[in-house]
């Protein structure tokens, strides 16, 4: 990491499918622009790098007022009423809907995205406090995660970087 190069850091704190993508897409774009990238996964964001969870991220329609889309041939602003969203299978339904849309845009699944970012030189770290709290081990993470770091270490590593919290 050269000192004069622009450096962008993303803090991923959410484990929902929709909140997984902003850092992945912007991080990839940053690498594509020759910018140094660090991603720090904390709290539920750790689901993005956990081997057993990365393929099972979901998006719940309950209390998601933005989840309006063209569905079943009805264009535009069809929402999912909360009482419907509570029904068994609705989270799986909205998850598969989103995954399908992403696939149509040729956006890779989260596991592949993480691998791409690591291969392209992004620095991926897990938050020590969350790891301790959730009783996770280093071997639970996908390849490419460079280590488990404390909040203090994180501050040192990202001196001068632009930081985006998601």
């Amino acid at each position, binding site marked *: 990491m050269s000192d004069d190069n622009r450096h962008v850091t993303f803090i991923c704190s959410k484990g929902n499918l929709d909140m997984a993508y902003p850092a992945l897409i912007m991080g990839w774009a940053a690498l*594509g*622009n020759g910018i140094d990238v660090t991603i720090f996964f904390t709290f539920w964001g750790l689901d993005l790098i956990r081997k057993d969870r990365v393929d099972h991220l979901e998006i719940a329609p309950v209390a998601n007022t933005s989840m309006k889309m063209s569905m079943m041939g009805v264009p535009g602003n069809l929402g999912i009423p909360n009482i419907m969203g509570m029904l068994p299978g609705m989270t799986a339904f909205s998850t598969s809907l989103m995954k399908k849309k992403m696939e149509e*845009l*040729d956006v*890779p699944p989260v596991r592949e995205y993480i691998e*791409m970012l690591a291969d*392209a*030189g992004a620095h991926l770290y897990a938050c020590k406090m969350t790891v301790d709290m959730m009783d996770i081990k280093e071997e639970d993470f996908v390849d490419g995660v460079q280590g488990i770091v404390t909040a203090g270490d994180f501050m040192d590593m990202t001196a001068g970087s632009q930081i985006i919290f998601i």
Partner: protein
Amino acid sequence: MVTKEMLGLNIEVNEEGFMLDTSQWTPELAVEIAKAEGIELTDAHWQVINWCRQIAGVLGVSPTLRQITKGAGVSTKELFKLFPKGPAKKVAKIAGLGKPQGCV
């Protein structure tokens, strides 16, 4: 639009240095542009450059990073090693193509 003199030719480029007229491109020009970017072209570079020119002819636009790693027979790691700091843009510039659009 800017006109840049390379190899004794007047090459039309945009503000970011991407060539505007791909028919002006020659392999010799690619070597010059790559040199200016600090890259010495090898066979591995040419494999990517040729694939990008070929696919751009089909798509009408420069391929994105992921399109290159999926189609050009080069891994993400290799691509970033061959064309450090923004491979898709660097290849497009060297291959005389426009700036790649698209997020992935």
